[in-house]
């Protein structure tokens, strides 16, 4: 595979992570536990979706098949989306949503940091912007994980349940696809496996303050990077794609 095609494919995968997580966050809009969160969650969703747009647009140009950001975001089948399963997990309660955000942001922060030295200028540019945005996500979601973990009895219990429910999906963040491997070797994208220490550190720090323990995960869940998704994902796509599928080929 040519490096441009490999990079396009890897960036689409990364774009999928951002699109799907942004979409999930946006589902909260207007229904948050407090007005301040009705502003913060859309902020984070806008960051995610903005990064997805950049990634898709660049990837579309690289692959040179005439696909724009919307073709990539809206017009693929479920097996063609390569986002990790973590980001597609349903919002659950506020504890689940904040923990999912922390897990993802704790991975993306060192990822973008490392990507600021990518051999590709465009990726450097995306990384410089994203690294600032994602630092806020770690702070915001991390503070909530701490508040809820060390809040009331009920909130601590819910936070603990969220950890049990979601921790098993975090391993997939560190997996790679064939095209990612090509990009890693060409110094276009960072190697996720090398980000594990930083991720562990962030999570350990937050969990210590939140009185949470990192669970043993005998059977990690993965499959998204291979296009094998959970049952909820089809419902997400049917909503996301509704207009494009109902009114094909129109300008909006």
């Amino acid at each position, binding site marked *: 595979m040519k490096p441009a095609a490999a990079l396009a494919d890897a960036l689409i995968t990364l774009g999928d992570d951002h699109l799907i997580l942004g979409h999930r966050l946006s589902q909260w809009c*207007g229904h948050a536990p407090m007005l301040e969160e009705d502003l913060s969650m859309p902020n984070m969703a806008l960051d995610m979706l903005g990064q997805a747009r950049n990634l898709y647009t660049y990837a579309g140009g690289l692959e040179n098949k005439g696909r724009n950001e919307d073709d990539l975001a809206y017009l693929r089948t479920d097996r063609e989306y390569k986002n990790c399963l973590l980001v597609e997990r349903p919002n659950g309660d*506020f504890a689940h949503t904040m923990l999912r955000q922390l897990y993802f942001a704790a991975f993306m922060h060192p990822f973008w940091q490392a990507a600021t030295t990518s051999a590709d200028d465009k990726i450097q540019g995306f990384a410089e912007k994203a690294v600032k945005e994602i630092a806020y996500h770690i702070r915001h979601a991390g503070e909530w994980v701490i508040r809820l973990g060390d809040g009331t009895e009920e909130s601590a219990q819910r936070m603990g349940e969220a950890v049990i429910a979601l921790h098993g999906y975090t391993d997939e963040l560190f997996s790679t696809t064939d095209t990612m491997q090509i990009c890693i070797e060409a110094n276009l994208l960072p190697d996720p496996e090398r980000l594990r220490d930083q991720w562990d550190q962030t999570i350990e720090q937050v969990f210590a303050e939140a009185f949470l323990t990192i669970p043993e995960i005998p059977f990690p869940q993965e499959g998204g990077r291979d296009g094998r998704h959970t049952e909820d994902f089809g419902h997400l796509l049917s909503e*996301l794609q509704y207009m494009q599928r109902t009114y094909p080929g129109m300008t909006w």
Partner: protein
Amino acid sequence: MYSQGLIGTNTETEESEEFLAAFQARIDREEKIEANDPMPEAYRKTLIRQIGQHAHSEIVGMLPEGNWITRAPTLRRKLALLAKVQDEGGHGLYLYSAAETLGISREQMTEELLTGKAKYSSIFNYPTPSWADMGAIGWLVDGAAIMNQVPLCRCSFGPYARAMVRICKEESFHQRQGYELMSVLAKGAPEQKQMAQDALNRWWWPSLMMFGPYDSDSSHSDQNMEWKIKRFSNDELRQKFVDATVPQAELIGLTMPDPDLKWNPDRNKGQGGYDIGEIDWSEFWRVVKGGGPMNRDRIAARTKAWEDGAWVREAALAHADKRRARRAAAQEAAE
């Protein structure tokens, strides 16, 4: 939003004649009244009520548009809609803060909203079944809100006036964005044009009702005019909105759902303006009194968010208390 908020306001006061005259003199000199200034109780109550209703309108107003965030047809539209709904939440936040300066808490206002004691703009009790409603709301609902709110930038109560300056800038951006969305549909495929026309048909009359009853039928605005809380009458503002909006519809080839709409060269002191057909006030009152298509759903959604979020808010308070206690203990140990 809005003049509708003033329906049924009780503006009777018991303060002395001198006090009221001195207050009125400040207003007449166009001085801004600040939160800690002496003010007639009725002035305070009217403002708490109006600002509270305005804040509630922003918050409930997030729901009809929020309904389409996950189904927006393109990424550009999805971001724009999400940002717009977020802006409305921001408006709610400044307005609650402005009302809080008058001695009511956000919590209390929220309870009044959820129990039905406080109202919000009735326009948000209509459903958004189609994507074109995102255009119609921005264009017409934000457009009508601007007509009401631009004069409020000069409202005699300083915190409200200042909040309005900031909000109006964003509302006019929303209005342009909504109109642009609508114009793309109107120029698009037949299904899109039909979608746009259908949305206009559904939103036009309710948006005219946003200005409140005809001047001939509304009894309470004189005092608010004198206090410069309100500066134009319902009919004046409605006329401005009609005159601004009708040509915009024509420009993109949409038809106002009003067979009696016609140009009248004598309106607006001979400058010309549009005559419109009779507004169906029975529909307006039905929606104000809780019988609109979405009244129950809107309050149910707000109630659910509030109740589902209770444990989060409690946890935040509990955590803050624990932190404070730990800090105090550490300080004590250090001394």
